[in-house]
């Protein structure tokens, strides 16, 4: 695009959602509004699944989740029934932006970006993201940065503790503390390091949505008009906007600025008990009589009679028990595709509690990705197109539940995040109908004048 910038600052706001930043009922956010008026912006179409892991890695590598071989936080390590591992930094084999910039002599600061723990060397400074298990670990690169940050800024708050609670006042304080800690680290590093690329990710927005959405959104089934938390999401966005304003005081006009999220949010109407449904359809058979609710991982499953099982979260994943693939597979490999098509049809035909179609979306990994590496689920399921979460536990009296057995949770994820870019290019003034997450990394490399690897799957935004 020409008119390149000398430096690039990326402010990631996990789960920041377009309706509060761009929509007709947007909050008053003067710093973001200024960046929008001086740059370009639009909703950002994220990846499948629209989840923090893998979305930030997709954004920073311009590789889809299938190419990364990361389909969510927990992935099958093998075809056994319980071989699940967490997709941390070690799972990302493709170079991310800071890896590429390091090869070109650019110095990076990478602060709390998901999937950066265990830390790997970078030409610059890195603080591991929220998959850091503990502050006792070596969560920075170089190691000496940890001592310095703790001395200058205070203890690293990795994430919000005790998230599942009815004590909303206490939870709100902890979410604010997380955000203040992250921006304090950012302001310290932005002042003290000679960086070309600076990226931070603030996780508090995501935690806030999940904990407080029902108090803000009149479309949420549990919304009450005169509740004491009605303005907390607006107030939090405005507090984040002020902290962004403070951060921007440390950069000059030659610095390109991107404010971006990895996905958006929407009201969660309830949960679909995926494994309950599979049991009722005859696809999943337990060897035990249930007395109360239980995680599917803790159940004794009759694999000789089980054709599929699922896992829960903001989206559903279904795994087939395939002959010759799983240890006690029963779905003949020859009828795999027919079985998969039948299940898609059945899930898409699922009716909700009111008898109308739930609007489920079901995808085969092969239709979503350029490559399908590692072990993907056999199907991805978005219940009510993400209006309903997937509940993996069993022992419910119905397929539908309006309570979350792990504690309060008001929001599910949505496919559109936010994208606001201020740089010196001809993009200024543009309002994009949608920006693809795969286009972000090549656009950022172009801004810094660094060659774009030919295997990136996105293109430079025009």
């Amino acid at each position: 695009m020409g008119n390149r910038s000398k430096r690039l600052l990326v402010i990631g706001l996990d789960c920041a959602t377009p309706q509060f930043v761009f929509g007709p009922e947007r909050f008053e956010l003067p710093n973001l509004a200024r960046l929008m008026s001086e740059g370009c912006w639009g909703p950002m179409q994220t990846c499948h699944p629209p989840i923090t892991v893998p979305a930030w890695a997709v954004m920073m590598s311009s590789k889809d989740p299938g190419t990364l071989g990361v389909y969510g936080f927990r992935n099958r390590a093998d075809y056994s029934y319980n071989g699940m591992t967490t997709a941390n930094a070690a799972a990302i084999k493709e170079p991310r932006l800071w890896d590429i910039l390091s090869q070109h002599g650019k110095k990076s600061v990478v602060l709390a970006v998901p999937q950066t723990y265990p830390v790997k060397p970078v030409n610059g400074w890195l603080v591991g993201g929220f998959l850091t298990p503990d502050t006792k670990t070596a969560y920075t690169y170089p190691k000496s940065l940890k001592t310095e940050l703790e001395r200058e800024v205070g203890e690293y708050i990795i994430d919000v503790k005790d998230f599942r609670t009815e004590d909303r006042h206490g939870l709100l304080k902890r979410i604010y503390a997380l955000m203040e800690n992250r921006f304090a680290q950012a302001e310290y590093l932005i002042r003290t390091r000679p960086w070309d690329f600076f990226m931070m990710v603030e996780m508090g927005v995501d935690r806030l949505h999940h904990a407080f959405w029902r108090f803000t959104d009149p479309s949420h089934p549990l919304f009450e008009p005169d509740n004491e938390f009605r303005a907390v999401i607006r107030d939090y966005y405005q507090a984040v906007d002020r902290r962004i304003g403070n951060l921007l005081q440390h950069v000059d006009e030659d610095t390109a600025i991107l404010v971006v999220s990895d996905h958006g949010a929407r009201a969660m109407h309830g949960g679909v008990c995926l494994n309950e449904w599979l049991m009722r359809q005859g696809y999943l058979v337990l060897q035990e009589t249930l007395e109360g609710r239980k995680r599917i991982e803790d159940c004794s499953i009759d694999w000789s009679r089980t054709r599929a099982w699922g896992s829960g979260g903001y989206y559903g994943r279904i795994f087939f028990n395939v002959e010759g693939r799983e240890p006690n597979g029963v779905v003949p490999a020859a009828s795999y595709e027919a079985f998969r098509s039948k299940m898609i049809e059945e899930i898409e035909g699922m009716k909700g509690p009111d008898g109308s179609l739930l609007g489920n979306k079901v995808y085969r990994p092969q239709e979503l990705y350029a490559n399908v590496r590692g072990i993907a689920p056999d199907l991805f399921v978005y219940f009510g197109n993400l209006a309903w979460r997937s509940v993996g536990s069993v022992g419910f009296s119905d397929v539908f539940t309006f309570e979350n057995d792990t504690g309060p949770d008001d929001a599910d994820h949505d496919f559109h995040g936010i994208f606001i870019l201020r740089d010196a290019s001809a993009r200024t003034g543009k309002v994009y109908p949608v920006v693809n997450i795969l286009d972000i990394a090549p656009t950022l490399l172009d801004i810094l004048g660094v060659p774009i690897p030919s295997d990136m799957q996105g293109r430079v935004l025009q």
Partner: protein
Amino acid sequence: MARGTALRLRGEFREDTAKALAQRLIELGKGAEIFDDALVSRLGPAAGLACRLLVRNGVFVVIVSEHVEPDCECKCIALDPHDTPDFAAEKILDMLAHENLVSIESHDYSPDEEEEIRRRLADIGYIE
């Protein structure tokens, strides 16, 4: 005994890089000595011989002084001025690992850490 080697660093930040490299080598269980001007001056004409003896005894000798010619094979490394000293040290370690002179640890979760992360992700709602 495992082999050592002599490395001569050249570039603006060679002293800082040498310190970072020696620190990392020690973390990896190796012996490391930095031959800077002060040490070379103290050793005098024996500095080159000292290099050889240390290398023979498995030590990694990192030379930043221009006033010594090691009495053994020495790899000369030109540092990229755009690299931080820590990152330059990691690049050298990668090279040493490629030559099987060091083995770089790959840290992953312990079983306890894996369970802690699983519990935390379930608490937040990402998984169950």
